């Protein structure tokens, strides 16, 4: 069954605004990752947060992880039109040998 659920399914914001996407998962994890997929392209790794971490930053990205609630959020600050893409969370499974992806959030940043 699908591991992660993400909300919202779609998000439309103005350039300069912040975008927050949420992800929930079902089993215990070693880490959780976020990926971006531009239209018609492959996935690109954005950030990884380990199960013993609560928050992590990378540039305009901020990820939080709450293992008690089995949830994570991705915040993109000061969004740009180029941030328009689908964003997926993924948790590790089978000893880290595979990733289980959420359904994704489609983000549209209007200029």
């Amino acid at each position, binding site marked *: 069954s699908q591991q992660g659920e993400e909300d919202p399914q779609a998000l439309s914001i103005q350039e300069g605004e912040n975008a927050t996407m949420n992800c929930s998962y079902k089993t215990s994890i070693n880490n959780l990752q976020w*990926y971006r*997929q531009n239209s018609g*392209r*492959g996935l690109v790794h954005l950030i990884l947060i380990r199960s013993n971490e609560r928050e992590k930053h990378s540039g305009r990205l901020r990820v939080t992880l709450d293992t008690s609630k089995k949830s994570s959020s991705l915040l993109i600050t000061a969004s740009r039109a180029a941030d328009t893409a689908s964003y997926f969370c993924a948790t590790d499974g089978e000893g880290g*040998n*595979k990733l*289980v992806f959420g*359904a*994704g959030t489609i983000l549209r940043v209007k200029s």
Partner: protein
Amino acid sequence: DTAVSQTPKYLVTQMGNDKSIKCEQNLGHDTMYWYKQDSKKFLKIMFSYNNKELIINETVPNRFSPKSPDKAHLNLHINSLELGDSAVYFCASRSPGVSEQFFGPGTRLTVL
């Protein structure tokens, strides 16, 4: 100097045909994957190979047969194509001990 490459990018074929998709990575990674992304963008793992050895085989019809001639290549052969096989197929790879995966650009398969 593409890291993970796939061919072809687009594949349109008739039901019942047999087709192959090729994947190559020049990152020196040991582990490679095939994922299927459906029309709702849901991404699901199909197979994983580590150093040419199959380590993950999800519930995939046996019409799908992966082959890894060496650790830099992982090909996917599909027999007797069905309408439901229409999807985007992604190849990915990763280094041992590292969770981050590197994805290819995808192959959009359309079965008519």
